[in-house]
């Protein structure tokens, strides 16, 4: 079963872009049915508020705010592996 990973940020943030690149490589390495979606907070403010996002870079998995701030690559990998095992 696929996991839906939504990465909330605002365009123009170089630090976020670099951090997201590292996180995206985690998803690509896993190659295990994780769907990545970039979400522009300014375009989807209502959705971000609904999920409880309070900072300008955060990650939701399957519609649940899991990382209120961008995690390290290791933390994201561990969370995805845990969820994928649970789903299988």
């Amino acid at each position, binding site marked *: 079963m696929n996991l839906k990973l939504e990465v909330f940020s605002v365009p*123009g*943030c170089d630090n976020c872009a670099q951090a997201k690149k590292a996180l995206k490589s985690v998803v690509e390495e896993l190659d295990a049915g994780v769907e990545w979606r970039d979400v522009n*907070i300014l375009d989807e*403010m209502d959705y*971000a*508020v609904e999920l*409880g996002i*309070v*900072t*300008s870079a955060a990650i939701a998995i399957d519609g649940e705010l899991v990382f209120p701030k961008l995690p390290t690559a290791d933390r994201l990998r561990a969370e995805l592996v845990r969820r994928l095992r649970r789903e299988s």
Partner: protein
Amino acid sequence: MLTIGKVAARANVSADTLRYYEEGGLLAPAGKSPAGYRLYGDDAVRRVQFIKHAQQCGFVLAEIREMLSFKARADACCHDIRALAVEKKLELERRIKVMKAMSQALEDLIAICNDEAKPIDDCPILTALETSLGAHSQGQRKTLLGKRRTRQA
């Protein structure tokens, strides 16, 4: 150099407001007169106006202090301020959502009360509020009922 009264008049705030900003670490006098009165530099008025505008956008003093500290940092960039603005907007939108829900709840309560002449014990608004209170605590419900009876007596 400007006295506190002159800065206050030019920025259209009270002297107390300037002292409050000083306590919050947002505005420091450049020095003191021989008599011990605060004296401010020419940039003070501009700084006070910055603080006022930021407050009008919903920023609290601690956040404004953070913004001002970014201005003094060589490694800070526009993105840092934009991130603060986005986060403030997220907070405001969340509060608006909560307040809309509260407003809707009140609208629902007002709608169920169609007879203002009913005795207080039959008031549908109080009954509806007690019902939801009862889910939390039977004891609280009893307390509320007791208060109503006392008011009637």
